[in-house]
């Protein structure tokens, strides 16, 4: 074998990869947007910025954070999960129905069940190659129908409020437990992604599914996993809603779909996949919650509120999106 050894020039001394100030700033943009919004609301109504008000806001935001966090992973994989809200509603019904039999284990059972339903959607998406948009759109109406039927189209009161009481407690007197749970979820999922190869597989799948697949990444499993997580998060969010409403109802969370997706996008996660993070969605969910509750509370009239909501949410995305990472914006 004649192997010519080339006199290759030594590779350039590795330059230490340090993000510029601008890059650092873009990764903090969701937080900046949050602070700006809070400041604006406070200026509009100085009474808004109180501890109890902030506590109420984060407590309110908890289910949305959880929903958005789960769906973020699906979005990072390049898909979308439109079924989260309907699945969450269904889970509230399940919770109320199962509570008498399962007692304390209901919460885990719910999360396991919704996780399994999410996985099923993932399998359908992956095996039948149906776009996730359609699979989960179909899922959305199917779950809604099941919820309607098994609940007999009405709310089901909790037989025992104590089982969800822990979620309504406060840590250190000010931090609502539901919010803490949401934080822990975001932290754990982020860490698991970071510390395992999952993150690079998820991103690769989102950026370029075919390259990821041909590059040997377990694309199908990653996608099914993402849908499973998204489903499980819907279950957890359902438990939070039930703890707040003392009942399960077949349409309870239905209106959280668009806010959840908005939270993801406002956080700066690319809806096309690949770029983004759960932390961004956390900040996004807080921004969306503040908009949903803050505008009317500070006294913006209903019609103007909608106009402002539209304008602010677009502005927030304009602020948070890291355009260096997303070359083409669809």
């Amino acid at each position, binding site marked *: 074998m004649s192997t010519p050894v080339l006199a290759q020039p030594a590779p350039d001394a590795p330059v230490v990869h340090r993000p510029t100030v601008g890059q650092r700033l873009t990764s903090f943009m969701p937080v900046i947007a949050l602070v700006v919004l809070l400041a604006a609301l406070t200026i509009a109504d100085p009474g808004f910025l109180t501890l109890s008000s902030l506590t109420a806001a984060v407590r309110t935001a908890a289910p949305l954070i959880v929903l958005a966090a789960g769906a973020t992973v699906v979005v990072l994989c390049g898909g979308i999960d439109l079924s989260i809200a309907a699945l969450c509603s269904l889970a509230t019904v399940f919770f109320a129905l199962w509570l008498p039999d399962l007692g304390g284990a209901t919460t885990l059972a719910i999360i396991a069940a919704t996780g399994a339903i999410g996985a099923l959607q993932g399998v359908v998406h992956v095996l039948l190659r149906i776009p996730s948009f359609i699979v989960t759109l179909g899922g959305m109406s199917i779950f809604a129908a099941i919820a309607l039927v098994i609940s007999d189209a*009405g709310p089901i009161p909790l037989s025992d409020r104590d089982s969800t009481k822990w979620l309504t407690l406060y840590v250190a007197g000010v931090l609502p437990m539901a919010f803490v749970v949401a934080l822990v979820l975001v932290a754990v999922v982020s860490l698991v992604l970071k510390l395992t190869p999952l993150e690079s597989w998820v991103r690769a799948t989102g950026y370029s599914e075919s390259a990821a697949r041909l590059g040997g990444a377990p694309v199908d499993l990653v996608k099914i996993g993402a849908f499973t997580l998204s489903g499980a998060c819907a279950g957890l969010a359902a438990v939070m809603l039930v703890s707040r*409403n003392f009942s399960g109802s077949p349409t309870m969370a239905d209106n959280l779909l668009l806010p959840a997706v908005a939270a993801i996008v406002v956080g700066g996660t690319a809806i096309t996949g690949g770029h983004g993070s759960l932390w961004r969605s956390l900040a996004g969910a807080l921004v969306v919650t503040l908009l949903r509750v803050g505008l009317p509370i500070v006294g913006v009239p209903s*019609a103007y509120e909608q106009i402002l909501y539209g304008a602010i949410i677009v502005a927030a995305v304009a602020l948070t999106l890291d355009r260096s990472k997303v070359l083409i914006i669809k």
Partner: protein
Amino acid sequence: TETAAGGGGETAAAEGCAPEDVTLVGQVRNESNPYEASWLDGGDAFAEQVGLTQERLTYDGDSTRQQEQISQLLAGDTDCLVMNILPNGDSDTPPIVEGAEAAGAYLVTQWNKPADLNVTDYDYWLSHLTYNGVESGKQIGDALSEAIGGSGGIVALQGILDTGAAKDRFAGLEESLAANPDVELLDDQTANFSRAEALEVTKTLLTKHGDDIKGIWAANDDMALGALEALQQAGRDDVAVVGIDAVPDALTAIEDGTMTATVSSDGPWQGGIGLAIGYCVATGELAAEDIADEDRAWYAEQFLIEQDNVADFVSPETDEADFACDNLFSRSQGAMS
């Protein structure tokens, strides 16, 4: 149950708030619906009457958003807060009630309440009022039977399936059907209280059942109006239509004779009365414990409106006297069963 009320203890100042310290809040689904807009206007009228302004909240038919707004509201200053709330659905009432109780805010709810939730168990939930849905459903059902001459096929357009109002009204229809054995319910579909959906559903039902349809029972006037459009487009003028709510367009239609009957629900009065009850208690003019148990959860007076009496309802006006502290429950038709 005497709910542990953290904020309640210090604010339960029975002596009452100064009238100018009272905050009035009215919350409905949206302002793009004539009935609910008139509700908020009624609230404004009452607020003006007592020299205050009403904070108008809308949640766009979004249960979670309603809860979010209320918990944010209750996180603020609740000392002299009076809330007149239209819960989105039955399941939305308990958390609102619990929240208000814990924060010590005066609350009046309307329309939706789970049957097993008792107003008398709470201190700050002053009253819940509604119209007897079974009764309204039955009244218009009977009117419809009469209009089609006591026999023939009808179809029903149901409201949002998981609301108490939709269920009660439909139960009323069933009662009416039982009383009119010759009237046959050919089909029931939901059109979600929406005019546009009612239009499509009715069109389909018209092709499905054709001339068998003699009457259309709609769980609210919006759907009845949608059905009327569908009838007009199908060139059918032989079908009687009934609805509930007495929205202005329905009244016009009844005047014209295109619609048969509706049942009044008085938006402006509802918007005012809830605030009035809260205001009277907050200012100490009325002690919460003096409200009779049958006035804690009650049916408000309603009227079947047909062509002969429609003129009386065309321009509903709020009467200041209705909101006087000693006259708050004058429209009561009795306690909720």
